[in-house]
């Protein structure tokens, strides 16, 4: 494929990116709203445009298990799921990270049952927050396309060797038709050379993987895992910087918009960033000193970059898209409060949970979240969270 700009559904762009990445194995089970991704991949494989094994598994549990087997022999491996699918595969999702098996997942974020809902929020990914995967959030089609390549590059980096989930909002992004700039295959090959895994399963050099850990070694194994995730950070940044050099499209773990002189900021993760920016532009025109802080890298958590972005601001209004039932707020706000606890110049945090199961959060809603949130912050009303738009 040559460099081309085209209008394309984001799911199709993901499948095209996976094909350009010359993936060897795709194992997936259909679930809304991920289906267009895997349908298009099946077509690409069926038409011989990508030479890969498409493994149509019996469940998401088997999808992740097949991915583990495929990654263990050193094959470039891709999967995609949502919601209940992620819940079903969650056992193996944790093991994939613990065994340091590189693979990429497009996670089309969708709410968890019950009640059953096919629509978008972040309750699925938050369930596996502590699994040890690298978790990236994207906002639009271009970011999604780009980050498929970046994710493979990070995942397969010998200094990283971790699975990577590219989180995109179900329907809001997966089913959106947007202009996306495709890169040419030569550039992709330069950025993402053939994967050569050290210590892959092969009869020529037998290794044992997934051994059993007695208490005298389990703690050390967990520390090793923690260091693995933590130490991946500079390599993640490097992968994005290299992509930026080649394409001119730059990504950072924490991204800011009009925050330099902002007194307070709205914090988002995922596709809400775009709406937030529009509302901030409107508020700026009215004289409000407000900006947007976007968490692109959720795990490993970009502590230093986040602090650098917000210390000195008066308030943060954090918009979560999941509830931690019985906890102190949404998962993002809880994380951010912890990151800022007792830091000099720490802003106060007001937390909203909004847009559960795809309930639309429009520009008007963002405006009221920002306005109300600011009032709450100034009044010192910063405990817990507010479920935005709750009826009755």
């Amino acid at each position, binding site marked *: 494929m040559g460099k081309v700009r085209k209008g394309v559904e984001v799911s199709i762009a993901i499948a095209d990116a996976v094909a350009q990445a010359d993936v060897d*194995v795709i194992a997936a089970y259909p679930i809304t709203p991920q289906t267009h991704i895997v349908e298009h991949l099946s077509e690409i494989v069926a038409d011989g445009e990508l030479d890969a*094994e498409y493994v149509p*598994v019996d469940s998401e549990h*088997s999808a992740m298990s097949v991915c583990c087997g495929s990654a*263990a022999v050193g094959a470039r491996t891709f999967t995609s799921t949502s919601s209940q699918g992620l819940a079903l595969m969650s056992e193996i999702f944790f*093991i994939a990270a613990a065994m340091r098996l590189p693979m990429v997942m497009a996670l089309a974020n969708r709410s968890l049952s019950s009640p059953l809902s096919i629509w978008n929020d972040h309750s699925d990914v938050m369930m596996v927050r502590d699994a040890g995967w690298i978790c990236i959030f994207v906002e639009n089609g271009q970011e999604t396309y780009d980050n498929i390549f970046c994710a493979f590059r990070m995942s397969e980096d010998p200094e990283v060797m971790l699975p990577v989930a590219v989180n995109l909002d179900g329907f809001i992004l997966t089913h959106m038709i947007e202009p996306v700039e495709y890169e040419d295959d030569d550039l992709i090959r330069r950025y993402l050379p053939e994967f050569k895994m050290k210590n892959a*399963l092969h009869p020529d050099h037998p290794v*044992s993987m*997934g*051994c059993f850990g007695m208490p005298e070694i389990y703690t050390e194994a967990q520390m090793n895992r923690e260091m693995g995730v933590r130490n991946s950070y500079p390599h993640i940044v490097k992968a994005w910087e290299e992509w930026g050099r080649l394409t001119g499209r730059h990504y950072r773990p924490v991204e800011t918009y009009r925050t330099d002189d902002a007194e307070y900021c709205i914090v988002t993760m995922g596709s809400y960033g775009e709406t937030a920016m529009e509302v901030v532009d409107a508020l700026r025109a009215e004289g409000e000193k407000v900006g947007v802080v976007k968490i692109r890298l959720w795990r490993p958590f970009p502590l230093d970059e986040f602090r650098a972005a917000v210390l000195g601001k008066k308030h943060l209004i954090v918009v979560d898209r999941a509830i931690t039932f019985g906890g102190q707020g949404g998962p993002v706000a809880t994380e951010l409060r912890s990151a800022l606890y007792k830091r000099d110049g720490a802003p106060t945090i007001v937390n909203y949970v909004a847009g559960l199961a795809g309930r639309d959060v429009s520009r008007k809603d963002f405006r009221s979240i920002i306005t109300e949130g600011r009032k709450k912050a100034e009044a010192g009303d910063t405990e817990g969270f507010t479920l935005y738009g709750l009826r009755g």
Partner: protein
Amino acid sequence: MAKTSVSSPKNVERAEYFAPGHRACQGCAEVLAVRLVLKALGKDTIVAMATGCMEIISSPLPLTSWRIPWIHNAFENPAAVISGCEAGMKAMMRKGKMPAKKINFVGMGGDGATADIGFGSLSGALERGHDMIYVCYDNEAYMNTGIQRSSSTPYGASTTTSPAGKKSIGQRTQKKNMVEIAVAHGIPYVATACPSFPFDLLDKIKKASETPGPAYVHILSVCPTGWRIQPSDAIRYGRLAVNSCSFPLYEVVNGKYRVTYKPSDKKLIPVSEYLSGQGRFRHLTDKDIEQIQAATTRQYERLLKLSEEE
């Protein structure tokens, strides 16, 4: 006994791919089965194994008994994991990313991993037609966690979750027939085996390896700990199981049945001889045993008929 390609221990592959020093119980026939299976497969083999006895006894970090590449991932997914290994290598070999080579892709699990928790995952892998072998080591209960019943536990056996009691015979259900379920997938090779008949076992694993597509081999693995017998009697009980027709040795090649070992009139024994010495069946009455005998005879005759029809 049908002719086997090897008929003397002297001619069995000498190389050991499962190292000594593992932590299996004394008299474990399952670990013997693993050792024989690996001898039949040879070094160009990758194994994905379920959580269970064999995984625990062979891989305490940082040690391993495996001299071939081996992966353990979870309890219910060895069939899916090995199908992923097969798919990965197949793609990479086809694309010239690695030199082409014949490799045995082998999933292994106990009866719990096979007939219960990993049932769907196994069925999926067999149905998809991967070039793989799945070996079930059937010791007829969850032995690793302390002898709890599985769907492969035979009728009447007392286990820690199907205990015999005043109002219970022990296991109330019939043993799930995994072999017939494998056959129903229409795969090219299905067989039963038992390490008490090592030459028969070696031949069947070799056949499974030579068969393109999925193969399923179900190995009765006597567990002295769980069956409550002496460790020194493990091999003998395997023979009793087969000679009483409780566990017939047969294979199904492209749907064609063949009993590979028919106990001669001299060797044929009633099931009572197989059941009586085992602690797990100690509570059974003569009437219970009669009932088991009738069911066993019925099933064996059905098998002989299937075998003759071909």
